[in-house]
């Protein structure tokens, strides 16, 4: 009986990540991701292959306009694979932010009727994107084969970089999802915020293009170092460890702020949603 002893009283602690509780509710997390994927591709003919289209179509468009017409330098790499290697993590990141942003509101029915650690909701929003990312990686392998790139030891860096991306996405995502509960404005802000962020990140251009004077400023954007790191890992180029280090540091700070704010206000969700 003692293992189910619960005390309910007003919480005053500032920062709390209920890791053990999230582990206890891991099956719920699994089913929420599964539900989102199922529902997303229900009544579609193409099914999950839609996940591949977004980065592919973007790759084609960017290759034509920025690669061919604007002649943005791609550091001696064919522009399509140059941009695709960055679009892959970027699409995951952008979709995660979008999904997180609406996740709490979209699950209002659950939040007002049942208890579970609320962090499960933004976590599940990101989980769905991970599956899409996995599929896009298959396409990447095809493109790499086409341009004669092979998988090297650098590829292993993808895992820590992915964790950095998840941390940043979770930090911003939890912050947005909690803010959206009180201020529906963020529903409108986020889509074009992501658009602006895309141009502030070296996705369609190499970081060298901004010049050494502004490169430090570029790296304050945590996604800058991470995205460029992805590119180095996939295309077997040297890593700029400074940029990656700064990005990781900032992404951890963002994560702490986002999750901290979320866990501070989550108790009020049911009252104000």
């Amino acid at each position, binding site marked *: *009986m*003692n293992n*189910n*002893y*619960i*005390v*309910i*009283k*007003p*919480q005053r602690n500032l920062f709390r990540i209920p890791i053990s509780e999230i582990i206890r*509710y891991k*099956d*719920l997390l*699994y*089913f929420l991701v*599964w*539900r989102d994927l*199922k*529902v997303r591709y*229900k*009544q579609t003919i193409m099914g999950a292959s839609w996940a591949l289209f977004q980065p592919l179509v973007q790759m084609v468009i960017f290759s034509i306009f920025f690669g061919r017409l604007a002649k943005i330098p791609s550091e001696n790499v064919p522009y399509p694979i140059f941009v695709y290697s960055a679009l892959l993590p970027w699409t995951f990141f952008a979709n995660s932010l979008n999904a997180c942003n609406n996740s709490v509101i979209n699950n209002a*029915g*659950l*939040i*007002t*009727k*049942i*208890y*579970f650690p609320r962090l499960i909701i933004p976590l599940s929003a990101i989980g769905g994107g991970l599956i899409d990312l996995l599929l896009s990686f298959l396409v990447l392998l095809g493109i790499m084969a086409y341009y004669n790139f092979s998988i090297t030891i650098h590829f292993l860096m993808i895992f820590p970089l992915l964790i950095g991306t998840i941390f940043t996405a979770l930090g911003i995502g939890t912050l947005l999802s909690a803010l959206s509960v*009180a*201020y*529906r*404005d963020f529903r*409108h*802000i986020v889509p074009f915020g992501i658009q602006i962020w895309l141009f502030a990140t070296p996705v369609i251009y190499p970081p060298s293009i901004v010049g050494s004077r502004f490169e430090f400023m570029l790296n304050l954007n945590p996604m800058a170092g991470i995205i460029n790191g992805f590119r180095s890992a996939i295309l077997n180029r040297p890593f700029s460890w400074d940029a990656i280090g700064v990005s990781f540091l900032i992404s951890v700070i963002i994560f702490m702020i986002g999750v901290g704010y979320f866990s*501070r*206000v989550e*108790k*009020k969700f*049911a*009252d*104000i949603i």
Partner: protein
Amino acid sequence: MNNSKVITITGLSKKYRIGIQEKHDNLREAIASFFSNPIKRINRFRGASGYSKEETIYALKNINLDVKQGEVLGIIGRNGAGKSTLLKILSRITEPTDGEIIIRGKLSSLLEVGTGFHPELTGRENIYLNAAILGMTKSEIAEKFDEIVRFSEIEKFLDTPVKRYSSGMYVRLAFSVAAHLDPEILLVDEVLAVGDLAFQKKCLGKMHDVSSGGKTILFVSHNMAAIENLCTRCIVINDGEITFIGDTVDAIKHYHSQLSATVKPKDLLSENVSRIGDGRIRFKSIAMLNSEKKPSNQIHMGEDITIKIGFKVNQEIKEPRIAIYFKNQLGQTIFRPFTWEKEKDFLSITNDCEIQCKIPKLPLMQGRYYLNIWIGEYNRPSDFIESVLSFDVLGKDVFGTGRQPDHRYGGVVFVEHKWDFL
């Protein structure tokens, strides 16, 4: 063990800020109001510091309660009295403002049937999803899956999206999942108000099995018959405070006397009346007249009575249906005059007006009775008020024998009859 407390509530309060519902659908408005009152905005998530006292209301005030293992505790009270808030705090959906609750045991709450059901998913998929949401693990669900399907009686439609289910099937499936939870403490809110009668009985039966297995149930309902059948003890909540704890039958009596004390039958529009409906027509007044056509709440058995009801019309409704429910102290409906069944053509109500319903020879035995009144179009309520007035029926020598029929020998109504030797 059998007498151990599984829930201990001490000094529990919940404060809500009114005005918290205000929302801004566009940015301009939001920014304008942000700058006009920035402190209030920022403090929205935080303590009450940005709010004056007038803006807060207590949904619950200083609740103290112990719940023992194995008891079925009924929670009754008017709409908005705080019953659901109490369940929400117990199930950790919302946080208390003050006080402490200690829960010993695995707790599940059913505040709604089919929480998290997704219309696009099939019955099978929704069983898994809903069960996970209610706190079951994957292996537990797999183990109980067949039993859940059998209980729900929807085997044939298991692979159909639930958006194509009838509402009855939907409820059956949802309740079946809930019924197979295996908690030590179960919180149930008004979920039995939906579904067909036969299935409701099955659910009540299932709940009864659960409670006789040493489990503790907290049960919120307006269905007094269900409360009386299931609960071993009852609390009455009024305006956020517990006004009665004790025996179920006494609690129901207390609840009804509270209702009739709080609602004065004169002007239904200006009073603080709790009501349900779309408001196209509102009940304005109600009066019960005795055989001398004078308003009274002391009626004799067999007396001719008239009920006068006044309406305020906000919007015309065609073919209105009006019903008056006569209920006893246990909340059972004894009879209910209903225009649609009795009057073939009942005209539209276009202007404020009054109607009357005459009941010759009221067949009720002694006791206190309550009226619920309902008006609506088809089955859609425009206005519905529970226990709008109460009256006492006094004994009388209705058969002319010099003896009064006595309710203590049993019976709620009396009928004309004749005895003969053959």
